[in-house]
């Protein structure tokens, strides 16, 4: 989210410095979200931080919202806007599925998101990734960024933290990966983005959607993949500090 103002080397402060900014800033899921398709389903992931300015309003947010039994959406942008749109689409899709008397297609859900995001594009600030499994086309990922475009991609990232992991995603994604490879790709990418983006953090929430069902996991901070440049241990090593054991 906030792709247009992503290059902030030194934030210019607006307004009074006396009042803390969380009294005036909108609640946003400044975020990192990601979805990857594999043969037989999709893997989706998100961080868990919701901010109002510099205050973290919720550090254990669930940004992976079910829209139907096998269709999820990953939300980024304004928390209120995305929750409202997701509620509307859940209702519309549920109604459509009853009329059809079978499970809805992921493409249908994606088009419903696009319809709302495009019609109200001036008022909304929502970047959504729709992912799921259906009988006709298997695992699919559709991205509906700010503005209301719709495009299907094998792998997609979104949110303010996504800019930092484009390079990692481009170099590590290969077509025809297995479910475990996808899980490792998503958790690795999210942990890198959370390290670099101030608006992303907390825990990593993952979900794997396939014909058999939805398998959700949470990866806590101390269980995240470790890199030689990021995190607590490299910091201690670089300063010559003692490394306290984590649980």
């Amino acid at each position, binding site marked *: 989210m906030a792709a247009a103002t992503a290059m902030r080397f030194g934030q210019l402060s607006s307004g009074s410095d006396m009042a803390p900014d969380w009294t005036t800033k909108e609640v946003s899921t400044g975020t990192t979200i990601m979805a990857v398709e594999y043969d037989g389903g999709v893997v989706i992931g998100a961080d868990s931080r919701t901010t109002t300015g510099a205050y973290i309003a919720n550090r254990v947010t669930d940004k992976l919202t079910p829209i139907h039994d096998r269709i999820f959406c990953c939300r980024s942008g304004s928390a209120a806007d995305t929750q409202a749109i997701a509620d509307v689409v859940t209702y519309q899709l549920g109604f459509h599925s009853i009329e059809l008397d079978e499970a809805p297609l992921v493409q249908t859900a994606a088009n419903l998101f696009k319809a709302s995001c495009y019609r109200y594009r001036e008022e909304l600030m929502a970047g959504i990734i729709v992912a799921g499994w259906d009988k006709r086309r298997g695992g699919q990922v559709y991205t509906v960024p700010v503005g209301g475009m719709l495009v299907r991609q094998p792998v997609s990232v979104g949110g303010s933290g996504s800019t*930092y992991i484009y390079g990692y995603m481009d170099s590590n994604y290969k077509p025809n990966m297995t479910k475990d490879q996808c899980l490792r790709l998503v958790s690795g990418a999210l942990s890198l983005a959370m390290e670099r983006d101030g608006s992303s953090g907390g825990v990593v929430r993952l979900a794997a959607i396939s014909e058999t069902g939805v398998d959700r996991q949470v990866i806590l901070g101390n269980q995240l993949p470790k890199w030689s440049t990021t995190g607590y241990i490299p910091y201690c090593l670089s300063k010559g500090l003692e490394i306290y054991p984590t649980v």
Partner: protein
Amino acid sequence: MDISKRPQTFERQKGFSNTVRTEQVSTRPATYYLSGAKIKRFKMLEESSEPGWLSEEVKTGTTIIAIEFDGGVVLGSDSRVSAGETVVNRVMNKLSLLHDKIYCALSGSAADAQTIAEMVNYQLDVHSIEVGEDPQVRSAATLVKNISYKYKEELSAHLIVAGWDKRGGGQVYVTLNGLLSRQPFAVGGSGSAYVYGFVDAEYRKAMSKEDCQQFVVNTLSLAMSRDGSSGGVAYLVTIDEKGAEEKCILGNELPTFYDQ
């Protein structure tokens, strides 16, 4: 100091600097922010039909990277210089020589970055004659930092200084906004945002010279394919005890990824 290896001055790039902007009547503010999005928004308000290169400031919206290995450093950059949406130079070498074994990588405003590099090149020449030996990389970085800090309100350029000296081996220094910090590796420019995740994941301590060169080429290729302000060819400079070796990798020889 080899005269033929002096840093490129702006006049040598034919064509652009000779254009006299007499037709321009709009009054534009003197400073532009690094963010490309800010410039685009300004353009929308103006509703101007003239091409961007007549009035937009020339920027090296860029990807630059420097990494040290045991015995030297590798610097890399793309080659695109943009003025608004126009690419005014697609083959510019942004790795500028400060001394025989000290180079700097330019990003931000093209004019500001080149001027800083030329000033420091001169100051280093004087300094090295005074001390009677090759200057330290830290000295070069400090000179760049002093200019960047003193004129930080007027300038918008970020230089990464890297080189080899006999006291400290290969070293990389960042001088963003007037700070001075030594790092094992550094990325900069608008394209660097897209590869933070990649470099964090792929960097390992104690890489060999060839590994570092491959790392730099991969990083540049990824950034150039995602950032609209970076592109063209990739320039590489490897500096070690024996000297500096410059290399140019053409677009079609760069590594490609799954969707190319």
